[in-house]
């Protein structure tokens, strides 16, 4: 671009123009055609050849490295590449930084490795970087034996020091390379760690402040990905664009907002990736994601627009996949005030709402009904064996009259415009309002923008004079953490907690506390089943649905499996 930032340059340009103005007509031609094609032409040229700055750790030209992958491919595997359409640009290639599912679950599991990983299809963990681990009898000390022979993408070895380093730089704000990004997720997941030490070259021990069972599953989340200390020290802030881990794919190039190319890491310790390249393209518009899939520009997309699912299912060249996510959408009752301090009125609301109609017609089946306070994705901790309130307006009216609620009773219903995980809150709110009107409850809706909504919601429904509100949570890696935050009596809004219904039940508190400390899966399952039954009976919240994660891919893509946690691994994926 011509330098017009300096006023004196401009004046000079002006006089230059005036001098050039030999005749008006010539000037006019200059102004339009020459200027248009000429200046804009040079503008274009000035914009520099295509490639956005590429921050590849290996700076080999794209063409040669593509050829290299072809020749160096093992005979058994095709050096093919797959293009995956992402909903947004990955935010960072430092596992400590991201707060979005898109980066944490879709990209990082392929580049970074954690001490343990989720088994296929469940939240149970199995060894990854750690070949084994032991837990002390008091459930406080976790000791990990690091697998031998793991190297990072930069060739340095992954040892006990690297593990300690990867966690310390996230947990200790005074660490020389402390950099957690704007939101320190590590303290949310690993805040229970009291002490972290290297026992020997291959052994690391974590000591917790108190028994906290979710600790082990939280370690499977890539926030706890092990990074190369050498690379972090070298790159410093630049590490967020270098991403040196030990996973089956390594970062080859990253053209910001255009694509990110990962290539097979040939020094990988385990089964090597079968793809030569894994290319992510951020395509924000959901319709564009679909048309790219239909036109063959990308081979796999997730988070499909509900309206396109039928079309995709019927397309013979595409394969559709879905799985309920670790998500719950629910209504909060303000149990502190009338009328919802009466269980009968809460039950009446539950019977009054035509849940299936909302899920089918408004959500186009992108949700699956949820009656428990733990989502189905957390089987076996989840149980469907709870009181289910199926649509029954007659029963609702009967319960209301039993409770002495006159037809036409008014309540205030807090509804949000949109929000992370909130699905279609406004139309859902209106449908619920209409269902309640049919049984004689007049819900007056207040619609707030998400930010404003959270302010009002977190301040407490009772403080704002509201009776009913909407909320949703993604449950992370453990079934117990969110119920603790949303149902425990110590977490009332008055204590800055998320128990917005002001629910208090000593038995529930006890189950929530012991559930987080219990390590025996059988006992833990019993605890959470009891919890779900009590909560469904007492209805502090009306659990409504779990959002379904969806994906569509070309028929030629094989070996791709959705995981309840949303994580996506491409090590075994092939393309024909």
């Amino acid at each position, binding site marked *: 671009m011509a330098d*017009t930032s300096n*006023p004196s340059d*401009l*004046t000079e340009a*002006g*006089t230059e123009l*005036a001098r050039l*103005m030999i005749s*008006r*007509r010539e000037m*006019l031609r200059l*102004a*339009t055609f020459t200027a*248009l094609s000429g200046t*804009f032409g040079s503008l*274009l040229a000035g*914009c*520099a*050849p*295509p*490639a*956005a700055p590429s921050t590849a750790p290996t700076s080999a030209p*794209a063409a040669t490295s*593509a050829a290299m992958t072809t020749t160096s491919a093992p005979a058994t595997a095709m050096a093919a*590449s797959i293009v995956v359409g992402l909903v947004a*640009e990955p935010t960072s290639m430092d596992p400590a930084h991201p*707060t*979005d599912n898109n980066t944490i679950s879709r990209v990082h599991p392929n580049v970074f490795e954690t001490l343990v990983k989720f088994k296929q299809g469940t939240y149970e963990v199995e060894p990854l970087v750690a070949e084994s681990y032991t837990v002390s009898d008091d459930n406080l000390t976790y000791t990990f034996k690091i697998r031998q022979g793991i190297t990072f993408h930069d060739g340095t070895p992954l040892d006990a020091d690297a593990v300690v380093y990867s966690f310390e730089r996230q947990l200790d704000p005074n660490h020389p390379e402390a950099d957690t*990004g*704007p*939101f320190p997720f590590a*303290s*949310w997941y690993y805040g229970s760690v009291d002490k972290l030490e290297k026992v020997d070259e291959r052994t690391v021990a974590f000591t917790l402040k108190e028994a906290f069972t979710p600790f082990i599953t939280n370690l499977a989340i890539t926030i706890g990905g092990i990074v190369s200390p050498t690379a972090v020290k070298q790159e410093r802030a630049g590490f*967020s664009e270098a991403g040196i881990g030990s996973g089956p794919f390594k970062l080859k190039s990253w*053209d*910001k*907002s*255009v*694509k990110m190319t990962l290539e097979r890491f040939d020094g990988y310790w385990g089964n090597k990736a079968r793809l030569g390249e894994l*290319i992510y*393209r*951020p*395509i*924000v*518009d959901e*319709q*564009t994601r679909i*048309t*790219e899939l239909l*036109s*063959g*520009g990308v081979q796999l997309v997730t988070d499909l627009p509900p309206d396109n699912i039928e079309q995709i299912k019927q397309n013979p060249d595409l394969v559709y996949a879905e799985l309920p996510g670790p998500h719950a959408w629910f209504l909060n009752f303000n149990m502190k005030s009338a009328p919802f301090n009466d269980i009968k009125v809460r039950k009446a609301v539950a019977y009054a709402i035509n849940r299936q109609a909302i899920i089918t017609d408004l959500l186009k089946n992108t949700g699956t009904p949820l009656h428990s306070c733990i989502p189905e994705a957390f089987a076996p901790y989840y149980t469907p064996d709870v009181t289910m309130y199926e649509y029954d307006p007659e029963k609702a009216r009967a319960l209301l009259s039993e409770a002495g609620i006159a037809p036409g009773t008014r309540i205030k219903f807090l509804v949000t415009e949109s929000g992370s995980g909130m699905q279609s809150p406004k139309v859902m709110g209106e449908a619920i309002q209409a269902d309640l009107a049919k049984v004689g409850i007049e819900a007056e809706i207040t619609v707030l*923008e*998400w*930010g404003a*909504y*959270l302010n009002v*919601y*977190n301040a407490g429904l009772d403080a704002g004079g509201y009776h009913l509100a909407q909320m949703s949570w993604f449950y992370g890696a453990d079934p117990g953490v969110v119920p603790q935050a949303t149902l425990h009596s110590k977490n009332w809004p008055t204590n800055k907690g*998320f128990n917005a219904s002001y629910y208090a039940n000593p038995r529930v508190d006890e189950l929530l506390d012991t559930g987080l400390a219990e390590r025996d899966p059988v006992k833990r399952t019993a605890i959470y089943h009891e919890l779900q039954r009590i909560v469904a009976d007492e209805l502090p919240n009306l659990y409504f649905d779990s959002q379904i994660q969806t994906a569509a891919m070309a028929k030629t893509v094989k070996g791709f499996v959705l995981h309840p946690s949303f994580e996506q691994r491409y090590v075994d994926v092939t393309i024909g």
Partner: protein
Amino acid sequence: MRRYITQRLLSAVIVLFGVSILVFMVLHLTPGDPVEIMLGPTARPGDIERLRAELGLTDPLPVQYVRWVSRALQGDLGRSIQLNRPVLPELLSRFQATLILAVAAAIIAFSLGLLLGVISAVNHNKLVDRVVAGFAMLAVSMPAFWVGMIGIVVFAVNLRWLPASGMYPPQGAPSWGKLLVHLIMPATTLALVPMAVIARFTRSQMLEVLGQEFVLTARAKGVPRARVIVDHAFGNTLVALITLLGLEAGILLAGAVYVETVFAWPGIGSLMVEAILKRDFPIVQGGVLVIATSYVLINLLTDLLHAAADPRIRVT
């Protein structure tokens, strides 16, 4: 001339000052606590305090504004909340893509628009004129995102002639040829409305000029018809067209928001949409500032070209 330029520059500075206040206020006019909005429902109080201090939100507004402007003048527009990267380099690299798209669209809009306008005027009230008028009406009435979608369905999904989105194919090294292929659909989509406006405008200007006495004189002198049309008539419409160029530049930048989103074009428009959805205020603020500044600069350039083209403007 010098005085005129000084005046224009001064007014540009005043406009930019106003823009900077508006942009700064974006953060404070949004309902709710900006920091809580940015961090979402799972943020703990400690993080909220930390970010609030980091953003300097605890100081009085005028202090915050002065600090923000002085940093902005030094090229520091803060860090993106979502991307955790400095805002300015991010914006500039995205702006480059927008510029490529807008310039390509401008070239299409102006070359085709002028051509169609001249053809219409010359064939005043004949069938060709009516067809062009109908086409222009259609082009103005169709929303850009809709045209883009239809284009994708027809040319990418069904015919498979053109790529559906993006700036380059994901595999292999980028090249000018690949860029051009990816440019065709988004640039044409973005060009449609300005092209129609320019065609209509050129037509009416030409008709006006063609009816004037000097044109008749030229013809009477024996100047060939083609030369009269190109030199005499068209030449005289250019002053007005330069003004249009400035106005259309704004339309091109605004239209880029839709077109970039539909075609996943990595420009500043799609970045802003993402940033708004994710409440990434530093990006939104910086983006508005960059777009407003470029718009002001384009208008300044238009004014200068205008003055150069028409001596009467300079005098006043």
